[in-house]
């Protein structure tokens, strides 16, 4: 039995300590955003944020996570009150099948949390571990730029108060 902090809430997890975080998020806590794409750390669909850094949850066993804060896309905002990154992706319609998008957004969010004004070069370099097969790359880049702008002005708006720490 282990306590796992996800999106600000404590969860009691009864899974083997070697269980990858991805399965715990999806099956035990019933969160949808982080996806199974490869289970090998090669595609980024499973990306979440742990203590402010982007992490591939499919290769992160539970036993590493004692005392750490896990943030998933669900923790950033909702349809009614979306975080800047979620608003940006909606406004740019930055998705085709959408399967890779949650992972993209979490990696971008981690970048924006530590570098609020990334250059285009930096965004591309940051997103390198994340694959998109539909070819939505240009929109994803535009959405991340947009999110950076939104975060800049987000402090006043209600949505901004929900952006992840």
């Amino acid at each position, binding site marked *: 039995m282990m306590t796992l902090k996800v999106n600000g809430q404590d969860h009691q997890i009864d899974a083997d*300590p*070697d269980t990858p975080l991805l399965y715990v998020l999806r099956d035990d806590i019933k969160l949808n955003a982080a996806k199974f794409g490869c289970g090998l*750390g090669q595609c980024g669909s499973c990306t979440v944020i742990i*203590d402010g*850094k982007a992490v591939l949850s499919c290769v992160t066993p539970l*036993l*590493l996570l004692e005392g750490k804060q896990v943030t998933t896309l669900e923790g950033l905002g909702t349809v009614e009150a979306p975080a800047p990154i979620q608003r940006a992706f909606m406004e740019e319609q930055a998705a085709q099948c959408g399967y890779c998008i949650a992972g993209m957004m979490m990696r971008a969010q981690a970048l924006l949390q530590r570098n609020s004004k990334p250059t285009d070069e930096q965004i591309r370099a940051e997103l390198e571990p994340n694959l998109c097969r539909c070819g939505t790359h240009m929109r994803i880049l535009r959405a991340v730029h947009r999110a950076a702008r939104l975060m800049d002005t987000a402090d006043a708006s209600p949505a901004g108060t929900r952006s992840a720490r």
Partner: protein
Amino acid sequence: MTGSSRIIASVVVVILIAGAVVGFAVAWRPAIAAIEPPAPQSFDPALVKRGRDLAAIGNCNDCHTVRGGKSFAGGLPVPTPFGIIFSSNITPDPETGIGRWPETAFRRAMRSGVDRDGRHLYPTFPYDHFTNVTDADDQALYAYLMTRPPVHAPARANRLSFPLDQRVVVAGWKLLFLHRGSYQPDSTKSAEWNRGAYLVEGLAHCGACHTPRNALGAERATAQFAGGDVDSWKAYAINGQSPAPVPWDAEALFSYLRQGWQPDHGVARGPMAEVVSNLSSVSESDVHAIATYMAGVFGTPTPERKRRGEEVLAQAQKPELKSPAPANQAGASIYAAACATCHETGRPLPYGGVNLGLSTAISDPDPRNAANIVLSGVREVEGERSPIMPGFAASMDDSQVAALLNYLRARFSNQPAWTGVEKTVEDARRTQTVFLQTSPGPHNSPADPTQRDKP
């Protein structure tokens, strides 16, 4: 002033002036007149091709290119114990590159470490090795560089503190450590060995990374190939003190250098990735020569080492988990959960995780490389079939990485425990970012050249 003190004063003055004259004579080099940039068509294509191959052996593009920049346009920050040196622009750009250099100037730079203006070059540019290169090979290299696309990229200022930022001090360094002249063959050895020696001691400049340096930053002549540093990585000892669990021989070295991986040792990553990426395009005979020469440097393994190597290989076939010592329980769990899923499948290299019993990183006295790899993994090479290992910097804290490393050391080597692992990990976190951000990265990847490998 008394007569004797006047004489002493005069002698001192004469000595000072003589010293200054000598020093000046030692330090001063004339400028070589600039030329009009030679037309690329004026170079013989066969010569250019030879120069290309030589430049690949010399790994020139690796230091003279920065990530995001154009090939050979310089700008790569090279950390040294004395400060940061930025590599220069060696494209034939007339203003910011070597476009106005005649061949004599280029040869002088390679031979003596002096630029066209007569300024001394910092030995980060390893002319202590390149001095061995023949005139003919310099000519080919010149032809190659002068036919590259010129790139306007002004040099970045080095970050050295006084007095090291005064180039004249390099003159003194050269007096002590630069032995000019080209390679002299050893008639008791084969042609292939001599070719290898010429390349290794010269263009390939292996010792520049793999030999420890003294306080003045020069390679220690009595400790050739005994191991050195490059960026935040340890360049292993590649002589008789090699820490590799399975001893290297010429065949294995050839495979490794040519393909970028070898089944009994692993995959070339870190700074070596770019080296093997270049060597994959060079003639097989030259790589064979290098391997032959280096096999001699490694020397014949002792019976004990040989036996240990066979034991390690046998164990790698069927990895059995002996119960970890209580001290390593945390590390054992981390290994089982995060690493074994790729490193114990038996999937062959270069795409399967190497069996860690074969890993030199774990057997080396220095835990840096193991820390680097655990933290940053192995990054994909865009567009190439290449091994990908996730990094664990974001999911493991320092104590977790340290626990893992200590476990790996205990389980997969027969060497004494590392010390100061947590500090190594802490430092590695910091330095790794810089390396990954600035190094241009390999353009080729370790792959079975026939692309017919089994999974």
